[in-house]
């Protein structure tokens, strides 16, 4: 049927009932900007959809029950072993359902990719400043989604009740138990009694297949709706301003690209599920509370907590008959709590410090916000060191390093590493900014050497193309702090008074520290502008139309 006839029959039928012509047309024509990093969110979205699809398949066979059975199935080495029905049904899916192992593996890989994608997407948003007004709500929703994702993954891989994930549940119970005042109560309520009980798997099951996916689905819908409604941000470039969106329309371009990307995500996950084994629960064996394996780690997204638990020294305080188990609840609550809280308040903190309450629709290049980028790398370093510490026994075994050295290195590293990372990253950003300035002021080296009449050799430069120039020049300017009300009396303005005001001023100076702006004289960029900004002594000329003798003179004016 031709497009026109389809529209007339089905389209009209729907429109008669839904009044959609104008609204849907707006959606179809919506312009979506294009940048590879904008697809990271799609990685997460499509992984989630694949999780829903594969997960539904698994629920058709999985039994969320901790009732003990003796195994007599297809996996021979475990015949005669006592295990839970949950574990047995997972073995059944893996070895007795066609496609079962494939779908199980795709599901688990998709969970890993979902979390990896969230981290990548969140970092992209952070480093480009896309969380700024008007997108703070979406940022907060994102952090909630990250937390829900963590829980969803933890609960999901604990469902098969195998030795590895069961040990994880044991650790979870021990951590909860250590919380002051309420710990033992919460632990008993969650597990329905002492560990392991027989209720935890069915409870986690319903959280994992119904409640949390429902929450995630709802929040993702809001997240996407807000993104549509507020329009996506765009990378700086020629013709891109804060008041427009440049790109290609949803229909057909964006739809086609996003559809293609869905197939890539699904395809990549299927390749992984086919050729790379994941979560081989038959090798781990069923959970039993007497057994443990060397090299036991949770899935990678829980790795930071694991590392925090390993790195913590043995501190506790027994006070009036009660134990403050610092060695457990500090690593469980503090590092992750710090990072997530800082992340959640960051848009508002930045707004308070800089006083910048404008809408931002053009992304920052990370180098143009050196302090923000350095802070982000610093947090990544902190996170990463704890992550690595979580695998310390594997590192020790693989790299032949004594075990305790790694823990000591991590104990020192979680303080020294972020500080170093901050300093180094900030300097790198400012250095990159200076390089950009150089390009703007002096143009691009062409590799053509010319001899001037006076005998000196110079390298000819050409001005940067318009496209690149637009990108190089895109820098957020921060509004100035409110000035003193009367310069003579130097009374600070109301918002800058007191201790908090001084703190704000301090932070403002640090946060807005960047390389100086490029010197651009009134002429179009590249004309006769031979000034060397930092007296580097390189006299070279920008070659472009109409430069004439002015450029030759300018080249003598080295500063």
């Amino acid at each position: 049927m031709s497009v026109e006839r389809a529209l007339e029959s089905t389209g009209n039928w729907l429109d008669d009932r839904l009044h959609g012509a104008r609204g849907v047309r707006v959606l179809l024509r919506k312009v979506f900007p294009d940048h590879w990093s904008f697809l990271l969110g799609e990685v997460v979205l499509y992984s989630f959809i694949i999780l829903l699809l594969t997960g539904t398949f698994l629920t058709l066979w999985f039994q969320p029950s901790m009732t003990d059975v003796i195994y007599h199935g297809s996996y021979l080495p475990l015949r005669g072993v006592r295990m839970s029905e949950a574990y047995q049904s997972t073995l059944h899916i893996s070895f007795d359902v066609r496609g079962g192992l494939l779908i199980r593996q795709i599901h688990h890989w998709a969970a890993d990719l979902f979390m990896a994608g969230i981290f990548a997407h969140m970092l992209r948003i952070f480093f480009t400043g896309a969380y700024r007004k008007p997108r703070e709500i979406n940022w907060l929703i994102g952090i909630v989604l990250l937390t829900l994702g963590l829980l969803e993954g933890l609960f999901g891989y604990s469902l098969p009740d195998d030795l590895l994930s069961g040990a994880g549940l044991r650790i979870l119970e021990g951590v909860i138990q250590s919380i002051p005042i309420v710990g033992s109560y919460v632990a008993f309520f969650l597990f329905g009694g002492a560990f392991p009980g027989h209720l935890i798997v069915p409870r986690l099951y319903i959280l994992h297949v119904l409640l949390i996916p429902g929450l995630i689905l709802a929040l993702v819908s809001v997240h996407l709706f807000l993104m549509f409604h507020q329009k996506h941000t765009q990378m700086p470039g020629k013709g891109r301003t804060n008041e427009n969106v440049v790109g290609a329309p949803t229909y057909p371009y964006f739809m086609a690209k996003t559809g293609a990307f869905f197939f890539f995500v699904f395809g990549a996950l299927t390749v992984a599920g086919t050729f790379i084994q994941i979560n081989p629960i038959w090798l781990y064996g069923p959970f039993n509370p007497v057994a443990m394996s060397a090299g036991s780690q949770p899935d990678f997204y829980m790795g930071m907590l694991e590392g925090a638990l390993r790195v913590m020294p043995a501190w506790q305080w027994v006070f009036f008959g009660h134990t403050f188990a610092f060695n457990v609840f500090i690593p469980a609550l503090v590092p992750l709590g710090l990072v997530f809280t800082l992340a959640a308040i960051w848009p508002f903190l930045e707004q308070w410090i800089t006083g910048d309450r404008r809408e931002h629709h053009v992304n920052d290049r990370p180098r143009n916000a050196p302090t923000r980028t350095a802070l982000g790398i610093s947090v990544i370093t902190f996170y990463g060191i704890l992550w690595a510490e979580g695998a310390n026994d594997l590192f020790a075994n693989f790299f032949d390093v004594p075990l305790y050295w790694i823990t000591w290195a991590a104990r020192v590293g979680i303080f020294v590493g972020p500080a170093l990372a901050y300093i180094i990253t900030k300097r790198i950003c400012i250095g990159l900014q200076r390089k950009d300035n150089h390009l703007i002021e002096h143009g691009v080296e062409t590799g053509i050497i010319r001899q001037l009449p006076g005998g000196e050799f110079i390298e000819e430069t050409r001005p940067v193309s318009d496209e690149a120039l637009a990108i190089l020049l895109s820098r957020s300017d921060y509004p100035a702090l409110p000035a003193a009300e009367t310069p003579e009396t130097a009374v600070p303005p109301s918002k800058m008074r007191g201790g908090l005001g001084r703190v704000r001023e301090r932070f403002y100076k640090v946060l807005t520290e960047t390389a100086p702006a490029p010197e651009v004289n009134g002429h179009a960029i590249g004309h006769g502008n031979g000034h060397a900004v930092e007296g580097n002594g390189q006299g070279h000329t920008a070659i472009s139309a109409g430069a004439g003798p002015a450029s030759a003179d300018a080249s003598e004016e080295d500063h």
Partner: protein
Amino acid sequence: MSNNPSGQPGSGDSGEQSWPEYLSSRESRGSFGPGESSAESEGSVPPRRVIGTPPPATARTMLADHGDGGAAQTARELPAEPPDPVKAKKAELIVAACFLIAMLAGFGFLVAYGLIGVGSVTDAQHSNLWLGGTLSLVLLLLGAGAVIWVRNIMPPVEQTEARHPLRSTDADREAFKETFEEGAETSQFVKRPLIRRTLIAATVPLAVAPLVLLRDMGPLPGTSLDHTVWRKGRRLVVYGTGRPITPGEFSSPGSIISVAPEGFQDDDDAMAKAAVIIIKFRPEELQPPTVLPWTVNDIVAYSKICTHVGCPAALYEQTTHHILCPCHQSTFDAARGATVLFGPATRPLPQLPMGLDSQGFLIATSDFHEPVGPSFWERS
């Protein structure tokens, strides 16, 4: 744009402007179509579009804001054909090939499903390879074909759409405020505090009810965390085989074995706290703070449940007599009462008092003298 007074897109540098004005302006606005260099753009004016005339290679359009205008388009917004028909034709063949192979792979999946059975590890391996391999092909080829289609067959386009400030107009805000306040007033909610306060009072217990309903999720811990199932006279049996142990059998120095209370080795709830390891030492190796009266023939019994967060700590180095918990590397000195040497655990592993029964088997002479496992608030 010339006859569109409302909803004027706020362009970067000029306000209201008619279409002819826009087209004749020499300032570079919007983006250039891909493939055009900056030199070409200066001085060139995009030609007027007329219905039926094929557009040039690149389409540069400032989208008119038809969102609330509702008027039908007078000119095409999107080019109808790609710029290079030969290249597009080649790409079309590639895309078709991708989709065809994908189709064949899809059939392969169905055939593989039908032909390859499961029921053993090797069969599962083959099934996984064939099903997964064919499915991967289908998906990746669909993706690749779609990308080639978009990039090489759909004509490249770059459009600019205006953003509107998200902030509503003052008039709209004022109207909202009026409506909201009117409604509040009409509802009498604000004016009659008795209704308001009693409503809130009525909902408070209702809000607490869902929390209260969760009370029966589990029993209160009470003192259960302080005890295990070990009792005076309960025999130690090898975990897994259930065989009781005599010191004469467990006699090789440097031995360790995991042990359960007799009768409880299949009770996971009990074993999660009652799992015990016994270690045989050479004479004189066991030192305080190991409680020597609780040992039998240089055999000492410790709780296997790590005092950090409860993993079974079973890694034992005979030469250094360290017990290492593999979870977080808490290290205990088995010769010295399992005192903590390294790692996050704060308490030594509790020692189980042992004795011998009348037949010479190892028994517990009482429960542990302190709670086993991870610390908790009520533990003193």
